[in-house]
Every structure is written in structure tokens, then in C-alpha cells.
């Protein structure tokens, strides 16, 4: 607690962990490459330097606020310093900006522009390094790395994986996986958070928009798209629409304009997931099955479990396919029954980079053809919308296509936020199906951005303990605690990305205040949808009785190889 002086302004500080936070609170946009409030402080980029009273220069991110402290944030010395850093970074940086996938959203480009770096005096004597395109989800281009270490810290601190780290020293320093392995040979779970935090084009999400355009242009193909719950509250960010606003109607319209045949809502198959998962859960309860039961929607979590906890695969982890794959199965059956002679191309718009890996998994491939052909991220869709010249903000809302035009129930929509799957399953298992009960479930502790949440639910005459986790490092803590017997849960929901799918790496990048708005957007949508329970969704009957028939179990569940 105290006051400090920033450029002569008296600013109060409370529990800010460094003066950078205080400066930003004062309304000054300090430039940084290596600082994220959610990660540990690294202090490497030195862009946030400030000048103290004695003319000394220190990094704002690594300095604690003190009462009476006086600093300046913009003096000629600081300007010179920042410009020099940028010039040196650019000297060894690939400068093919126009063809870079980060063009327009690159922090290096932005700051070079902001600080007016007009020339680079130094010769680039770094040898060109090979790109790593081996991963299904992520492309690593070491030539564009500025060594800020954001990816290293997010992978270690949030996901507990540490797939990439610094290697070598001095001018040879690089960020790479151990032994410079290809990403596909590591235990990388494809969560893409490294790409989300990367300020430049050094780690990017694999771009598959070209494939999509090809499909759309081909009259022999029937292109059917499903849109994940979290996409609708994030896509608007790319087009200046208020954070967290539900733009599903506009998204459907835009996809139709691009030539998509049918557009469906993954929230609907999230309802299927709820039905199946709740049934599986109750079945385990009645027949004394394996507990805790883990959710299975998140492909990064599944991959993590395969690598680190194979004992949970096909045992504790629910056998339910992810909502995307469930809808994939439904769309495939529906297409076969429709008599349409065109080849089905099933595409998913996802907030997720790991879905690109999931669609390619053997379990979800039948006779060499993927059940879901292509998974595009929210950002890829935004790119396509821009490419097509569609004025997204101006679009009228369009309805989803028949026969799944009902969309999902409120329970299906909240899948996109941490705690949503658990809440939907609780609603389903709850004895009391009144609107009062739905409101009560809201407050049992599954909502909110906390990384680990606990709740107790009473159903069928007994209490169930539920845990909701996001971030794989947190998941590891909970797994260990349950395995050692220290903690007991009946149901554990795990999502790899911060705050669940709304913070997915395929989404426009957002940290806490914006992410919270996305969560609120989904909860608002839930409130507006009259149907709150997955089994009350009238399309469920149609899907089970007319489309899936006796294949429901085999098409909606999976046994991992």
C-alpha cells in the first residue's frame, strides 16, 4: 500500500506485484515482449525499462513498487534504449513480414512501428534454421524467435510439460525441444498455448484454410460445418465486436456466404455427451465402477493422460467421445441416410488447436477416412471471413440448418467454459429438475475462473464430490492427490486451456478480463435458452431413434488404442 509518482502523476498502489502493473493501471501502455501477468516474471526483453530519480534504468516488470517512488516511463534515454533493443532484435529476425502468418498481429512488428524503427544498421549473420512442421497443430519457425521465453514458461508453469526450453548459450541460444527433436516426437499435447503467447511468428497454429477453400469450391463435396460453443463468444473480437458477445447467428451467415452446405451447433452434441457421460457416471455408481471418473472432451488432456497416466485411459477417463467427434458420427450417419450423392466433408470450427490432432487420430478414422475431416480454429475462420471480404459486423443473424436447427440446450452451451461440463452433468443427474434447481447448481462452486474448484452435489440419496480443473499442471496435482488417497472425488473435469475452451489457443488471444467476458457470454446464452437440461432437448430423441439407432453406443464412445 502506498503512493508512487509515475511521470509526475501520483498513483496509488495496493497489491500490484511490480511497478509495471501500476504503470498500466495509470493508463500508460508499457511495451513488453516477455511479460504476462499470469506467468512468472522473466525480465528478459527489457522493453519495460523506466528511469528512476537518479537516472538509473530498471525493468518495471522486475521492480517492486515502493511508497514515494518516483519514476519516468518515457525519457529520451529510455526511447533510445527501447529502439536499440528493437533494432537488435530485428537484426537477427526473419523480416519477411508480408508473408508471415503473424503479419498484422505480431508484437515485434507493432512495437517497431510504434517506436519508429526506420532502419536496421546491423547485418543478419544468423544462419537460417529449419522450420518444424511435424506437429498436427503447431508450426515452429526458429528464425522468428526473439527468445522472450513466453512459450517455455506457459508450457512449464501452466501445463507442467516443459516440452520446449532454452538450449545452448550466448549467440547460439535457441528455444527448442530437448535434443532439437521434432515436436511430433515429443510429449507435446498440442494445446497450442505456446503459440497463443508467442509475440511473433516463431510458434504459430497450423493454417488449413486453403484446404477448406478447396472443399468449398468443389461441387462434388457436401461441406457440413459444426461450431463449438466457445467460438461464438470469441470470434467477434476479431471484428471489433464487444468482448463476449454471442455472434453465432453472424457466424452461420458468414459460413453460408462462403458456400457451406449446412451449419450445425456443437452445443447440440455436447448435449449428447452429457446424456452419455451422465449415464456412464450413474452406471458406474450403480455397478461400483472405477472412480474418479474423468471427463474426456479435451483432446490435449487425453493426450497428456496417454503420455503420463496411461493407467487412466480406458478406465477412469470417460469412454465418451468429445462433442466434436459425437457430432461427426451423427453427421456421417445423417448424411448416409439422406441419400445425398456428394462426398461428405465434415468440418469443425473449434477454439482448439489440439482438435487438429484429434481429427487425425486412428480411433476417429474409418476405412481411411476421418469422421471429422478438418478442424479449423476460430482464428482461421476469422481469416477466411476477412479473405472473403465479408463485413462480419454488418451481418444479419442466420438460423442453424435443419434437422439440427434447434441447437444445444443451455447445458450444452456452457461446455465452452471451465466447469461447464461438470455443471451440465450435475443438472442431468440432479433429482430436482425445476428452474430453482438450475439456479442453485450455479452456486455450488463449479463456476468462476479459479484453477481448481470443488463442489459437492446431492443426488439419488447420496453426496457426490466433484472437482473442476483447468491447466494440466493443476490436473497433475489433482491426479497425484487422488492416487495417493489424499483427496477423493467422484467426477473430475479437466480442461487444458486457461478457463476452458474460451481460453483455447485457437481463439483470438485474450487474458483474464476478456476471458471472463467470454464466460459471461456463454452463461448469458444459457440463461436465454429455455431448455436447460440436455435430455429435454427435443432433438435428442430424433438423433437416438432415427439416426444412431442401435449403433448409439459404438458411435458415441471410444476405446483408445
Amino acid at each position, binding site marked *: 500500500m502506498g503512493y508512487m509518482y509515475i511521470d509526475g502523476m501520483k498513483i496509488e498502489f495496493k497489491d500490484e506485484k511490480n511497478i509495471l502493473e501500476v504503470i498500466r493501471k495509470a493508463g500508460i501502455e508499457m511495451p513488453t515482449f516477455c511479460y504476462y501477468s499470469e506467468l512468472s516474471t522473466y525480465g528478459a526483453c527489457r522493453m519495460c525499462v523506466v528511469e528512476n530519480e537518479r537516472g538509473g534504468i530498471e525493468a518495471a516488470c522486475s521492480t517492486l513498487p515502493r511508497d514515494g517512488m518516483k519514476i519516468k516511463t518515457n525519457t529520451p534515454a529510455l526511447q533510445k534504449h527501447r529502439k536499440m533493443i528493437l533494432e537488435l532484435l530485428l537484426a537477427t529476425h526473419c523480416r519477411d513480414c508480408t508473408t508471415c502468418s503473424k503479419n498484422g498481429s505480431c508484437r515485434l512488428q507493432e512495437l517497431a512501428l510504434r517506436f519508429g524503427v526506420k532502419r536496421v544498421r546491423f547485418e543478419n549473420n544468423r544462419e537460417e534454421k529449419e522450420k518444424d512442421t511435424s506437429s498436427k497443430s503447431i508450426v515452429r519457425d526458429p528464425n522468428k524467435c526473439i527468445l522472450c521465453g513466453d512459450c517455455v514458461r506457459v508450457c*512449464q508453469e501452466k501445463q507442467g*510439460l*516443459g*516440452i*520446449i*526450453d*532454452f*538450449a*545452448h*548459450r550466448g549467440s547460439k541460444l535457441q528455444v*527448442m*525441444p*530437448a*535434443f532439437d527433436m521434432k515436436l511430433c516426437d515429443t510429449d507435446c499435447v498440442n494445446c497450442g498455448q505456446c503459440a497463443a503467447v508467442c509475440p511473433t511468428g516463431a510458434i504459430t497454429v497450423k493454417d488449413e484454410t486453403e484446404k477448406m477453400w478447396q472443399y468449398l469450391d468443389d461441387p462434388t463435396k457436401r461441406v457440413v460445418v459444426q461450431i463449438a460453443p466457445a467460438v461464438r463468444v470469441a470470434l467477434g473480437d476479431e471484428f471489433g465486436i464487444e468482448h463476449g458477445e454471442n455472434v453465432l447467428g453472424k457466424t452461420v451467415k458468414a459460413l453460408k456466404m462462403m458456400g457451406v452446405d449446412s451449419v450445425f451447433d456443437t452445443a447440440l452434441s455436447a448435449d449428447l455427451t452429457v446424456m452419455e457421460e451422465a449415464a456412464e457416471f450413474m452406471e458406474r455408481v450403480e455397478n461400483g465402477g472405477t472412480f474418479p471418473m474423468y471427463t474426456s472432451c479435451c483432446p490435449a488432456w487425453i493426450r497428456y493422460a496417454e503420455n503420463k497416466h496411461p493407467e487412466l485411459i480406458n478406465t477412469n477417463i470417460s469412454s465418451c467421445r468429445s462433442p466434436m467427434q459425437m457430432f461427426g458420427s451423427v453427421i456421417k450417419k445423417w448424411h448416409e441416410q439422406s441419400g445425398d450423392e456428394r462426398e461428405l466433408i465434415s468440418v469443425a470450427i473449434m477454439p482448439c488447436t489440439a482438435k487438429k490432432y484429434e481429427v487425425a487420430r486412428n480411433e476417429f478414422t474409418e476405412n481411411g477416412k476421418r469422421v471429422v475431416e478438418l478442424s479449423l480454429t476460430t482464428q482461421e475462420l476469422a481469416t477466411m471471413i476477412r479473405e472473403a471480404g465479408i463485413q462480419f459486423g454488418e451481418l444479419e443473424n442466420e438460423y442453424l440448418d435443419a434437422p439440427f436447427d434447434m441447437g444445444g440446450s443451455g447445458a450444452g452451451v456452457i461446455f465452452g467454459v471451465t466447469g461447464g461440463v461438470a455443471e451440465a452433468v450435475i443438472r442431468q443427474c440432479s433429482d430436482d429438475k425445476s428452474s430453482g434447481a438450475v439456479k442453485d447448481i450455479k452456486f455450488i462452486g463449479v463456476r468462476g475462473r479459479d484453477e481448481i474448484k470443488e463442489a459437492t452435489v446431492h443426488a439419488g440419496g447420496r453426496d457426490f464430490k466433484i472437482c473442476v480443473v483447468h491447466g494440466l499442471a493443476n490436473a497433475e496435482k489433482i491426479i497425484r492427490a487422488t492416487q495417493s488417497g489424499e483427496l477423493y472425488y467422484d467426477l473430475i473435469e479437466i480442461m487444458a486451456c486457461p478457463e476452458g475452451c474460451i481460453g483455447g489457443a485457437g481463439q483470438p488471444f485474450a487474458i483474464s478480463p476478456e476471458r471472463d467476458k467470454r464466460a459471461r457470454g456463454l452463461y448469458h446464452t444459457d440463461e436465454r435458452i429455455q431448455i436447460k437440461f440436455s435430455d429435454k432437448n427435443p432433438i435428442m430423441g430424433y438423433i437416438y431413434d432415427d439416426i444412431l439407432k442401435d449403433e448409439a453406443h459404438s458411435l458415441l464412445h471410444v476405446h483408445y488404442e
Partner: protein
Amino acid sequence: MEQKFDFGVIDKILETYGSEQKNLITILQSVQSEHHYLPRKVLEYIAEKMNISLAKIYSVATFYENFSLDPKGRYIIKICDGTACHVRKSIPILERVRDTLGVSAEKPTTDDMMFTVETVSCLGACGLAPVMTLNDKVYPAMTPDKAQELIDAVREGESES
């Protein structure tokens, strides 16, 4: 060439120093004195045992000049190129040794895995300059000819035994 490692020895090293992260460098040093280098298989093993990511261990192992990820020869020749040795003509010694063995800075080990030639920045024996060591035995006041003789002697000894 798949090499077999005795992980029992590694377990003993881990037990001696403790598997906490802070002991990593000490553990790597012990592994290196055991194998003369840090074999990948061993690093993977200790990553698992110490619960440190392999990338982090690789990071530490590549940061320090003294750690080697490549197998080394049975005889390690270190030629000092500190200031004192340098001015007393250590470079011609280095060049002769490298020429004799057919090695270079990029490829410091002979194909028969007998010799590895390294330079060091100071051995702390400046009074004896120019200095060279052969498996940690110090040879003072060297000349290119004396270095060559030493190598020849080692080779002769090896072929006899």
C-alpha cells in the same frame, strides 16, 4: 550403435545427491565422470526420476561448456589456451595435435574413439606454460614435438596391450 547403460549406477548417483531439482548439475557432473559424456538415454532416465522436463535438462547440459552430449575418447587431451599459454605458443601445439589425430574444433574425437582434443581457457598452471593434460595428468612446458611424442607413446602402449 545401441549402447547399454547400467542404470543401477545412475540410481546410486541419484540416491547420493537426492532427486531434488537443485542437485541437477551435481548429478550431471557425476554422470559425466562415469561415462565421459552425457548419454541421451541416461538424461531421459534422470528426467523421469527427477521429474524435470527433458528439455530443461538439455537446456542445462548445453549451457555449460564442460558438459558434453557426444561420446568422448578414452584419452582426453586438454590444451591450455589461457593468456600465459597462448603467448608461449600453445596454438602450434594444438594445431600439431589436431593434425596428428585428424580432428578439429567441430569434430574433436578420433573415429576409433581413442582421443578427444579440447582447449581450455586456463588450467591454473600458468608457471608451467604452455601446458597440456592427458587424462588429467599435467604435462608442462610443451612443444609440438613433445606433444607428438606423447601421442605416439600412448598409441604404442595401446597397440601392445
